[in-house]
């Protein structure tokens, strides 16, 4: 088509440069530095080309640059598929496309690339600021698309026009967002790199690994309770259970024998809540001890840890019930108990000696040994700190007898070691403890610095019993929070500090907004869509009925807009209507106005044919001409024109 061959004008080139900048700047932290610099150079080149109106670089040079860019991306990532390499390639293409803007067609291609890059941003972050930034980019991009077909308007009206069109697109977006039948991704495999940098608990625990998490205020998950939030000291969020120990590191069980239903019975009141879990790339789900139900598509390990069938790669929502007083594992399998007693052959002789003394005193009475261990831990006057000294060799001995300073993993590891050495089956449980209720929306927010490790001992007749050795030495960690437990002056994550009330208030509000965004915008998934439609009275909504409703509603909006478009189809300019009355009267005298005739020329001709009315014809035509073609029409002009024409009888 002739139109797409039109060369790109200078103003269009500026628009395209602005769009490319707006689309690629937010991605600068995600692509390698050399690419950012190269893209910057290409943009500057484009600016110089536009400014000086130089010739475009020859095509062979661009082909070479594309190859160079692709090779560069490949060398950087060793692949060109996947999230980050894909985005990097798009940036390469966009930068070079700017240097070959020959025809309107190239402008459209550039705009489409920019839309892709906006989508690319969302692979990395989908926060509210990202969304606002993306809105701005889409506005500029749309204005550029407008300029690609008509570059005459100034930037400001062009942006306003784009804004108007986007505003009209909003109802369609809302309808589609709510009603377009959602599918739960992924449709095909997702490259693993999506979760390379997510912080969270790992499946091993060695001294210092949880202390590292305490420096992060990233959110692990949120929980919304039906009814009262249980007391802080009961909020033990069970995560990976680690029964195997090699002298330094605790690990989760490699073979996961799994229950499809919980193998224990509830006792006392149940607690119901809903968890919104941030993606962490691992399989486990966090549940308040002890889980009474299992989320869909999940199972319970033999260590009572709920795990999902697929790694948690998206923010996930599930309802849960907990039995805080459940008795579990009274008839525990021998294999599990054997694993819970296993210790390395040697090491930590001092702790082993103490354990041997408990064993000698209490024999097989697990409960008594447990009590003795608790007493021993409290007598050691251990100090809970975020900055424990580095330990080497016999880490349990060094912690209990020499440094006496440690974080929760030291406490838990030492306690389980001592129990096992005394012949009591025990294991380390990692997870989160506590959380903070946001008074604005009532959600309990659990952050990475709430990560914790505690111990579980198996007592004959009572099953698995939770003991938190940290609570023995630092009860405030369990009863309030981290900040209350660590000595003053230790470095805490910004959000964990509790000294600034107004700051905390602000944080609560921000967090409530973020949570609402996560729950209703980002977390709008097939389940939430079904719930919403069911709430609106649709029984068993499926994709067919959704599509039907969607079509009807979109059609309705379109109809409304079409009516708006055709609304003034019969509205004729009143001045023109009056002029038509005037010409109709003259036509009866045989003086026919031709539509191509200007009013003044017609008046002259008509005056010649009807000299008696020359004056009034001239006056009417002059007034009409001034109204139609003159500067600003004056008030009362129309009334005067109508009066003059009404009084005109040729």
């Amino acid at each position: 088509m002739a139109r797409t061959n039109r060369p790109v004008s200078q103003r269009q080139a500026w628009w395209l440069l602005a769009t490319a900048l707006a689309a690629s700047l937010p991605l600068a932290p995600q692509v390698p530095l050399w690419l950012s610099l190269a893209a910057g150079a290409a943009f500057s080149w484009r600016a110089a080309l536009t400014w000086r109106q130089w010739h475009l670089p020859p095509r062979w040079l661009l082909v070479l640059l594309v190859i160079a860019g692709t090779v560069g991306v490949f060398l950087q990532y060793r692949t060109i598929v996947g999230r980050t390499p894909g985005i990097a390639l798009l940036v390469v293409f966009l930068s070079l496309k700017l240097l070959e803007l020959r025809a309107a067609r190239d402008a459209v291609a550039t705009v489409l690339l920019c839309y892709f890059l906006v989508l690319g941003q969302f692979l990395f972050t989908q926060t509210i600021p990202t969304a606002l930034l993306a809105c701005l980019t889409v506005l500029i991009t749309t204005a550029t698309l407008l300029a690609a077909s008509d570059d005459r308007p100034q930037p400001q009206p062009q942006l306003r026009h784009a804004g108007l069109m986007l505003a009209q697109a909003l109802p369609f977006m809302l309808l589609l967002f709510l009603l377009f039948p959602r599918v739960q991704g992924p449709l095909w495999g997702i490259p693993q790199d999506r979760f390379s940098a997510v912080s969270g608990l790992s499946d091993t625990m060695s001294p210092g690994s949880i202390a590292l998490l305490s420096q992060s205020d990233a959110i692990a998950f949120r929980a919304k309770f039906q009814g009262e939030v249980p007391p802080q000291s009961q909020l033990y969020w069970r995560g990976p259970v680690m029964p195997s120990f090699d002298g330094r590191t605790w690990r989760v069980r490699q073979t996961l024998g799994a229950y499809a239903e919980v193998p224990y019975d509830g006792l006392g009141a149940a607690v119901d809540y809903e968890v919104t879990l941030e993606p962490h790339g691992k399989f486990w789900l966090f549940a308040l001890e002890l889980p009474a139900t299992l989320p869909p598509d999940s199972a319970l390990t033999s260590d009572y840890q709920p795990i999902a069938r697929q790694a948690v790669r998206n923010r996930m929502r599930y309802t849960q019930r907990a039995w805080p007083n459940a008795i579990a594992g009274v008839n525990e399998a021998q294999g599990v108990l054997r694993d819970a007693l296993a210790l390395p052959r040697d090491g930590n002789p001092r702790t082993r000696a103490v354990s041997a003394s408990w064993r000698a005193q209490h024999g097989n009475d697990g409960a008594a040994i447990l009590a003795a261990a608790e007493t021993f831990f409290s007598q050691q006057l251990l100090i809970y700190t975020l900055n424990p000294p580095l330990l080497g060799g016999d880490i349990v001995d060094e912690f209990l007898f020499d440094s006496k300073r440690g974080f929760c993993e030291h406490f838990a590891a030492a306690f389980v070691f001592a129990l096992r050495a005394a012949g009591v089956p025990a294991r380390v449980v990692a997870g989160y403890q506590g959380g903070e209720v946001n008074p604005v929306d009532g959600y309990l927010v659990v952050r990475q610095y709430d990560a914790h490790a505690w111990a579980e001992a198996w007592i004959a007749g009572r099953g698995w019993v939770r003991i938190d050795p940290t609570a023995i030495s630092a009860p405030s960690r369990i009863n309030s929070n981290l900040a209350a437990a660590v000595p003053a002056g230790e470095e805490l994550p910004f959000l964990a500090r509790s000294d600034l009330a107004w700051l905390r208030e602000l944080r609560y509000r921000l967090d409530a907004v973020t949570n609402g965004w996560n729950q209703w915008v980002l977390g709008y998934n097939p389940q939430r869509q079904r719930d919403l439609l069911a709430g609106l009275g649709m029984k068993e909504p499926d994709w067919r009925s959704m599509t039907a409703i969607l079509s009807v509603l979109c059609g309705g909006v379109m109809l409304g807009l079409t009516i708006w478009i055709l609304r003034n189809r019969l509205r004729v300019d009143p001045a023109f209507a009056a002029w038509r009355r005037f010409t109709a009267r003259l036509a009866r005298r045989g003086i026919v106005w031709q539509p191509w005739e200007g009013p003044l020329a017609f008046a002259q001709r008509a005056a010649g044919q009807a000299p008696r009315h020359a004056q009034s014809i001239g006056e009417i035509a002059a007034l009409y001409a001034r109204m139609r073609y003159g500067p600003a029409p004056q008030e009362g002009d129309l009334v005067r024109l109508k009066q003059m024409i009404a009084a005109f009888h040729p």
Partner: protein
Amino acid sequence: MLGKLRHRLHETFVRWALRVRPPEPAPIILTQRRVYVLPTRAGLAYGAALGVMLLGAMNYNLSLGYALVFLLAGLGIVAILHTFRNLVLLSIRPGRCEPVFAGGRAQFGLLLENRRSDARTSLRLFIDEEDPIEVDIGPHTSRATPLGVPAEKRGWLPMPRFTIETTWPLGLIRAWSYAVPDLSCLVYPTPAAKAPPLPWSSDSARGSAKDGRGADDFSGLRKHQVADAPRHVAWKAVARQQDGPLLTKLFSGAAAQQLWLDWAALPDTIDTEQRLSILARWILDADAAGLAWGLRLPAVRLAPDNGPAQRSAGLQALALFSHGAH
């Protein structure tokens, strides 16, 4: 082969689309029934890009990705409406069409009338797709737009079907319509490049016209008029009075001479079109010389006269001359 088929399908569509037998009575209003809307190539690319983006958003469960795709899809729908609105209910009236010589370009004047309170932007009109005219029409404004077409044969040239289209504002959607206004252009025969000299009839001062000297007695000067031949400008007189008006020399002999441009005067070996061409050349020459002339065709006789009206009448007679009259 394929191109031919496409062309035939297109013609069938157009015939169906126009429905009214051309030419149409004025004014032609492009009602919503006769404005067609389809995506352009850019629009198809836009749609394909949205499809890929939707797949990406699904695969990575990007809620904002869904939102972006749906916003852009909404933008596409809005673009349909805006493009449609840019064209629909435009009123077209046939305007003036000046006669042309065959071989020239007939310019059909159209009066595009925007009765709306919003401007219409970037409307493209064409008869031949390679040669479009782009116009904007302000609110409540009419705009005269000439649409050219090569005039090949003498006679009345009816305005062919023309297309009016727009892809404004986003270039993603094309709205178009066809119209055949009731408008014809008079095409004069091409004046012959080589023609015999003006045929002075025997009763006129033929001999003196041949040598071109002394026969036309100079009788005075008058103000120059556009139709006056440049060689009759009294350059000397003009130079004398410096910045005065151009003056034309008047010759007393001019009105008295009898110049008959006669069909029958030409040899029988010359065919009809050639004859008409020569006659057209004579008319132009005689008119340029400011001579009074008469025209004799089989069944047509035009009394001697001079001036633009005589010229038009003569040329029209030639243009509409038909064989049957011979």
